């Protein structure tokens, strides 16, 4: 159990800087998810905490220990890899107990700890098998078992579920959450899958191009994205973005020209733009409605419809030919090429300035 602190951490591969001065603090017993698109530096950051990558600049603390120069085995961190990284020539029991054996823990204690971990992970009957004889989900459990027995102060997960099929992924996700609840240990989890991030995290760190874009609880990120990147990354289907022109600023009341004929009014406190500026309006697909009940509307032509049973995705082009996504209920009566009016309320609108930052 420990907190993890990063101060101005940078990483360069040769001349190319991939992590540009990251500061972050992870609380004790917190389940934190690093999420971002491929190449954003999330795995590199995790590997730096683990000690598998050198740190170009900055400081990393696990608990109160400055770990920059510590060997990976001495940092009190244990890691689960994407490929599971099980030792193929050892049985499951030997795999789980390997670290303890090398660190000269007495045999009886190894046996006890391995049995305990196997019980938690429900893999007792697999202990004498080799990794090649296990399914993907079972291998993943063994990999987790290997970290549990070491009783680390921080668990590190590097995209551990991405090699599993969809159903198993959901199941393992829940088991990892339970595991976190049982072990009460700090966990750092890296994924590119925002669903995993949203469902598991106490707090999410969104990374992009080696910068932390925003930190917050899943709902904070969903409700108040700090910029266009976060707004577009969190939520599925992706948020819709429209270019809108500022027509009038009256104190904190602004009037915007929507694509098509409608106008809308928004209340914002930080007015850092002028009349005539083009801003970006973001509305989530689930906040669009086809009933004529809301304050604002957009005229659009339906391009394509995807029916998922419980809900319907409608893809439609607005007056400026932006492709909009609308999530409606499963029974929605709509057909292709139909002209529709998409309604929404100002409560659900996100406004972004020319610097892509959210305007509050």
């Amino acid at each position, binding site marked *: 159990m420990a907190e993890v602190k990063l101060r101005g951490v940078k990483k360069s591969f040769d001349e190319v800087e991939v992590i540009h001065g990251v500061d972050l603090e992870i609380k004790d017993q917190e389940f934190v998810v690093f999420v971002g698109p491929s190449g954003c530096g999330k795995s590199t950051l995790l590997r730096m905490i*683990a*000690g*598998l990558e050198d740190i170009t600049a900055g400081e990393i603390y696990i608990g109160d220990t400055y770990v920059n120069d510590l*060997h*990976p*085995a*001495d940092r009190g*961190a*244990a*890691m689960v*890899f*994407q*490929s599971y*990284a*099980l*030792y*193929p*020539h050892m049985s499951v029991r030997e795999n789980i107990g*390997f*670290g303890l*054996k*090398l*660190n000269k823990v007495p045999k009886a204690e190894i046996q006890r700890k391995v049995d305990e971990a196997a019980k938690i992970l429900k893999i007792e009957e697999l202990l004498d098998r080799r990794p090649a004889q296990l399914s993907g989900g079972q291998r993943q459990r063994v990999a987790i078992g*290997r970290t549990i027995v*070491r009783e680390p102060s921080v668990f590190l997960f590097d995209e551990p579920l991405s090699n599993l099929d969809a159903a198993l992924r959901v199941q393992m996700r829940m088991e990892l959450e339970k595991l976190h609840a049982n072990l009460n240990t700090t966990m750092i989890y890296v994924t590119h899958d925002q669903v995993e991030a949203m469902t598991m995290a106490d707090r999410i760190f969104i990374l992009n191009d080696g910068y932390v874009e925003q930190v917050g609880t899943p709902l904070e990120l969903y409700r108040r994205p700090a910029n266009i990147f976060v707004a577009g990354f969190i939520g599925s289907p992706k948020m819709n973005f429209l270019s809108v022109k500022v027509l009038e600023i009256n104190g904190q009341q602004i009037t915007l020209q929507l694509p098509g004929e409608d106008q809308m009014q928004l209340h914002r406190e930080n007015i850092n733009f002028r009349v005539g500026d083009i801003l970006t309006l973001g509305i989530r697909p689930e906040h669009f409605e086809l009933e004529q009940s809301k304050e604002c509307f957009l005229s659009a032509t339906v391009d394509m419809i995807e029916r998922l049973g419980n809900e319907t995705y409608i893809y439609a082009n607005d007056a400026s030919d932006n492709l909009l996504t609308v999530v409606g209920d499963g029974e929605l009566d709509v057909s292709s090429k139909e002209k529709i009016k998409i309604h929404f309320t100002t409560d659900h609108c996100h406004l972004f300035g020319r610097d892509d930052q959210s305007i509050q």
Partner: protein
Amino acid sequence: MKTHRNTKARFVFLLPAAVWVLTFTIFPLVYSLYLSVHKVETKMNVSREKVPMLDASGNPVLDAKGNPRTKIKINREKISTWTNIGFTNFKRLAEDPQVHSAIKVTSIFVLVAVPSQLVLGILLALLFNQRLWARSFLRAVMLLPIFATPLAVGYLFFTIFYEEGGPLGFLGVPFLSHPDWALFSVILVDIWQWTPFCFLVFLAALQGIPNELMEAAKMESKSKWGLFANIIFPMLTPTIVIVLLLRLAEAIKLFDIPFALTGGGPGVATQSMSFLAFRTGLRYFDLGYASAMSYCLLIIVMIIVTLFFRKLRQSYA
């Protein structure tokens, strides 16, 4: 009918390979077995006789006095006698001090050279598997000995070990003139030539170990020896067995390096089994005895190879 034609066609296609195997493998094998139970004596009867000299049209050539001129004709008659002597050649093998000495030389050579090559190969592969200054250049240099002809290597080292005026002459070591040193020199040259091969194969095997596996192990222990003994070595084992097998089979047949470097000497200090068989057969023309020696060598190699293949199959299973 169609099936029948197919069978014929198959036979036709198999024929070249079958002929090849029969000609170059089975026939020599059977022939040498046949030789090995015979005493083969090859002699040449040489006789001279005077015969008249004839000109182009076939008439005798006359000298100044009118007598026919004569010339001396040499008649060579090759007589090869094959006597079936049963297993006498094999019995001779058991009692022949030359054979005992050759077996000793070959054994020492194999037991020292092969493990050295393997150990050095693994150590170098471990070294080159890390980030290293000028790695690709050094690796290319390391591999050069593989491309040299063993016979040429033997002559090359003959000049290097040359005791008077050679580049190592200042050491005052009797590289080629002292029996023990001569065997040591042969071993040294073989190690020089074959370590790069072991190194290359082990390096490929090391690079085949997934990186995440090594990282997972690194996160569990900082003992480098622990990682080597528990992860790297077990994962290299199948490769080690194959390399060991190849090197053993090759080393037991040791011939070209002593042939070029020491000529088997001083005395018989570096006369290996193959070398002795070569001398017996193609220098002293005792073909039957040489065949018996070769057969013994073949059986020894086959026993070793079979044992190792069994071991290899176990380690894969």
